[in-house]
């Protein structure tokens, strides 16, 4: 029973953040962009529990709106990576041989760079912005997704029931799509949750470094970069955006752990 609590908490965090970002405009929050010079650097109060930034903007409101960008970028990148990576991995795993080599070797090259470095290099060419950042992250993730899909296909296609379907005259697309691909769905779902966590981290890191989301857009990384200059007078400017990143990442990591345990009955428990 205890084993189920952690993943459920993860799911709870993820759902709560999703609802929060969708409903943000309807919530009784201050504006994330309105400047109020007289409130600049005011500490946390009952009405503004996260305090105000150097321009008198509500940090709570900015964190909520920044989550929209953060989750938006992470979801878009993960979905794009699945859409591109899964077909590549399915074909590579099913055909093997030359097709496998032609698909996987170039993807190995992408995997040979540290993720953050590759994302920075891509952004140096693309320029800044949330959409471009999603595309850059999708490129970084695609090889991961392709590998996961390929591994699942390689493990599944030797199963007797696949041979059975083939003997009954199932065509190649039918074999792959209805008999093999569903087995790739589970590991890809787990991987998506992991990539959501990493995506939120990389979005924040790149925006913090000035190569991610562009300034007027509220982003957790940008808020941390702004807050650095005021961290002695107004530590809340760096504390809360950082905790916000951590909470979201923790939620997706806990969810990924839980999905792995639930969906893979053969995995040893509690690892």
């Amino acid at each position, binding site marked *: 029973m205890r084993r189920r609590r*952690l993943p459920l908490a993860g799911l709870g965090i993820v759902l709560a953040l999703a609802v929060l970002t969708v409903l943000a405009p309807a919530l009784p929050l201050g504006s994330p962009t309105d400047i109020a010079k007289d409130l600049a650097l005011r500490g946390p109060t009952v009405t503004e529990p996260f305090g105000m930034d150097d321009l008198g903007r509500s940090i709570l409101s900015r964190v909520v709106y920044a989550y929209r960008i953060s989750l938006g970028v992470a979801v878009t990148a993960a979905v794009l990576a699945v859409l591109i990576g899964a077909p590549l991995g399915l074909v590579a795993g099913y055909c093997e041989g030359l097709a496998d080599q032609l698909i996987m*070797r*170039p993807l*190995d*090259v*992408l995997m*040979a*760079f*540290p*993720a*953050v*470095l*590759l994302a*920075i*290099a*891509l*952004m*140096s*060419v693309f320029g800044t912005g949330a959409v471009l950042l999603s595309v850059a992250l999708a490129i970084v993730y695609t090889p991961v997704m392709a590998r996961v899909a390929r591994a699942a296909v390689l493990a599944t296609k030797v199963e007797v029931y696949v041979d059975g379907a083939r003997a009954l005259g199932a065509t190649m697309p039918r074999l792959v799509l209805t008999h093999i691909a569903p087995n790739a769905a589970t590991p890809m779902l787990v991987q998506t949750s992991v990539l959501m*966590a990493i995506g939120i*981290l990389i979005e*924040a*890191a790149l925006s*913090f*470094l*000035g*190569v991610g989301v562009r300034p007027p857009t509220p982003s957790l*990384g940008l808020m*941390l970069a702004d807050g*650095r200059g005021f*961290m*002695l007078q107004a*530590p809340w400017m*760096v*504390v809360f*955006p*950082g905790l916000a*990143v*951590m909470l979201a*990442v*923790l939620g997706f*990591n*806990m969810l990924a*752990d839980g999905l792995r345990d639930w969906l893979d009955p053969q995995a040893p428990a*509690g*690892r």
Partner: protein
Amino acid sequence: MSSPWTFAARRLLLAAPLLLGMSILVFGLMRLVPGDPAVVVLGYKATPEGVRALREAFHLDEPVAQQYLRWLAGVLRGDFGLDFRQNEPIGRMILERLPVTLELTLLATLCTALLGIPLGLVGGARRHGFADRATLAIGLVGVSIPDFWLGIMLMLGLSLGAGLLPSGGFVPLGEAPLDNLLHLVLPALTLALSRAAVLGRLSRAAVLDVVQRGFVQFARAKGLAERAILFRHVLPNAAIPIVTVLGLQIGYMLGGAIVVEMIFTLPGVGRLTLDAVLERNYPVVQSTVLVIGAMFMLVNLATDIVYGLIDPRVRRR
């Protein structure tokens, strides 16, 4: 099964096309920059003559394939060309900054091992105990902490707040060894803490795996002390996966170093890369990304080979 040395040689041979692919990717990527690089570099000061001179100096009028081969031939000789801004040899810029990044990575690896492995041992040895749950919790929270935020918090608490350590900057090891170490404590810890959390979690899993084996139960049955069982029977057998994960983490630290060097104003290769990206100094970006990427790949390769040499089962793959 192949002999250890043919295994190592085959892995090394596979690395060559990968490195070639990486160089093509990096070079190609930088050619995708919209607009004329010469105009981008010269900015508003661009005159037709200036642009023409720059294009000539950097061979930008040659066919792309020829530019690539010229660059690759240079790289193989250790000559990365000149940068667009200061006309300095890029190879020298990288060489000057490499020791900082390497020292940081080395210290962070040491911290990771010293924090992560004991955490895993304590957790794995007593399953479901308090220490075990603490290991799991630290592992989960540790991987979720953004390292750039951790760096800021450590800086805020230990250097700006308590005044214990310098908050940034760098002193060369040769000039003042103690000062050098003091300046690297916070950056190394920043880089190490989340990796130590991961290593702790995986060490715990490795220890749990070994503890269940027959020979450990036998050692316990014949009355060996728990401590002796842990150090003589469990640790040597759990060491292979632990060392492998540590090796892979050295690679990831090379990526993380970019962020940490920026926060703590360390003049390393990561900082050089980021500055070059922000200044649109593409020749420098191209070279540093290739150098860091190649180091990452080679560290992973070395880990892979060492793993294969220690554990004959891996070589069968």
